[in-house]
């Protein structure tokens, strides 16, 4: 009997199945969301009022729990007043996929609501800059320190116990401190991203460095390499593909700190847009903005993965997954 190709442990899928699963990974959640949004029989716990009738406290477009609405209708009928009318609706915080798609498009095409307010793409660009500088500063310090810790046991013992302690401190806890030191604009936001990324970065890269095959170092030594050259000639080129993968993961890490970071001091960037829209209960816009972050993050990562394949043609882990 042939076993189903879907249930073989640790075996790769056929290329077609791979693509199919990849597409389904996005289509399935979307389908679920559509089902909940567009089939009135599913969920829809509220009623959106289309005609308040004789009920004085109702307005057109207001949301009412179904039970309360039913009571009002029954009361009105009983007293022979005009009954309110409404349609089944999901709560306001769950817009339909279509509404979000519209909001996505509108966000780029309509003027900001306040006269000198930023366009959405300007908010996004500001967020990207915050991420970029936070990640850059963290990497400029963290990558060399990580490699040194991985290469030299003394460096590791000197730094890693403290870093292990520090990485458990939640980065947002330093928000107030960062504002006190760096002001209310971009400084503290970048600082939070650095704090959130740096400590993990050093530890992860130190571990990656330690995984280098020691036989390569010995081979280099027997070829006459002096120990100072080992770092630049063997350690760094040897770990480069793995280092690159670590850096991709850490960039994702930096993104997850973005929203918290942007709430510190004056709210800015995509976070400003999201909080503003939530305040007006424009939840479709909120979802659109969240989706934009996801698309931007995934897009960057796919781009970097492709770049990695051409940068490191010898890397077998990449060759295999290509």
């Amino acid at each position: 009997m042939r076993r189903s190709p879907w249930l073989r442990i640790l075996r790769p899928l056929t290329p077609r199945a791979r693509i199919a699963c990849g597409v389904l990974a996005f289509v399935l959640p979307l389908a679920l969301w559509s089902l909940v949004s567009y089939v009135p029989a599913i969920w829809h716990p509220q009623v959106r009022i289309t005609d308040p009738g004789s009920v004085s406290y109702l307005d057109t477009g207001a949301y009412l729990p179904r039970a309360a609405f039913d009571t009002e209708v029954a009361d009105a009928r009983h007293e022979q007043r005009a009954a309110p009318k409404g349609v089944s609706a999901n709560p306001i915080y769950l817009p339909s996929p279509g509404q979000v798609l519209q909001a996505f498009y509108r966000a780029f095409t309509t003027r900001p609501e306040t006269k000198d307010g930023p366009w959405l793409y300007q908010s996004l660009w500001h967020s990207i800059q915050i991420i970029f500088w936070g990640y850059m500063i963290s990497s400029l310090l963290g990558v060399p320190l990580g490699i040194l810790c991985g290469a030299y046991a003394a460096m590791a013992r000197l730094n890693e116990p403290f870093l292990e302690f520090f990485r458990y401190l939640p980065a947002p806890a330093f928000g107030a401190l960062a504002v006190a030191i760096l002001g209310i604009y971009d400084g503290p936001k970048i600082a939070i991203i650095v704090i959130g990324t740096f400590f993990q970065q050093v530890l992860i890269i130190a571990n990656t460095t330690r995984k280098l095959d020691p036989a390569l170092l010995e081979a280099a030594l027997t070829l006459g390499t002096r120990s100072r050259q080992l770092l630049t000639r063997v350690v760094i080129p040897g770990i480069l593909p793995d280092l690159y993968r670590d850096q991709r993961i850490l960039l994702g890490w930096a993104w997850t700190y973005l929203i918290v970071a942007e709430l510190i001091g004056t709210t800015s960037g995509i976070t400003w847009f999201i909080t503003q829209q939530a305040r007006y209960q424009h939840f479709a816009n909120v979802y659109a903005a969240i989706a934009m972050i996801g698309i931007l993050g995934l897009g960057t990562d796919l781009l970097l993965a492709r770049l990695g394949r051409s940068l490191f043609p010898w890397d077998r882990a990449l060759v295999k997954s290509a």
Partner: protein
Amino acid sequence: MHGLASPPPLLPSYREQSAAVRARFDSLKAREVIMTVSHLHKNFDSDGRSTLALQDIHFSTHRREFLCIVGPSGCGKSTLVRILAGLEEPSSGEVLLQGRPVTGPGSDRGMVFQAYTLFPWLTVKKNVMFGLQVNGTGRLQAERDAMQWLQLIGLERFAEAYPHQLSGGMKQRVAIVRALANQPRILLMDEPFGALDAQTRARMQVHLLEIWRKIDITIVFITHDLDEAILLADRILVLSAHPGEVQELIEVPVPRPRSLAQFITPEFLATKARLEQLIYSASQETTEEELYPMMARMTDVRDNVE
């Protein structure tokens, strides 16, 4: 049945040498000494217990000699060659390379490992250039030298390939010329063909002999394959296990040039019989492994395969 079981052939003594072989050994021993190992001990300390891995190793090897080191597993042959390379320090005793003590790894001793140690991020050509460049040879000169070495072993077509694109045998051929490109005085090889399949291994042995014939190089070759040792070596250093000690330094009486066809010559068989006697009789006494159990029969008595 009786017809097939021929009496054991009367082998000559492995010490008997033909005139030509004796003359070769005389000229070999007349050459300068390249490496001398004297009173070498090595202790490993773990958990407060000290284990003696090598005890009073002594031998010397002459210029352009091919020396094999064999011994049962656990005799410390890998440790020995790592000490020769300078990758480990002896607990006492010393290694002299042309009279100068060895204190650490250096380009005067090349090494080929059992594991593939080509640098995966460098092309074949750049792997061969590596040793030259870290020792200060300019890029262009290193490139010219590397191409010559690759031509010598017939791999110039793969100069721009990465190691992961090569077969195991090719990787080891590149590893050999990478070590030779530095023009070391001695080439240390730690079971370099151990990971290869039998056919590739046989071809590599012939190939290595060809390289050795053409280049001024002394080779110290570790193996646990007795046929391989006899095929390659001028002399074979036999170690015993626990602790590793020199049992005998055998002069191989098989004439040169060597070929795989010599596996059935009387000299070859006599040498092999002696090696087996030294290695297996000794290892049976000191073996730490349990005997494998006799199994109960789990098939029908009439269902025989032998």
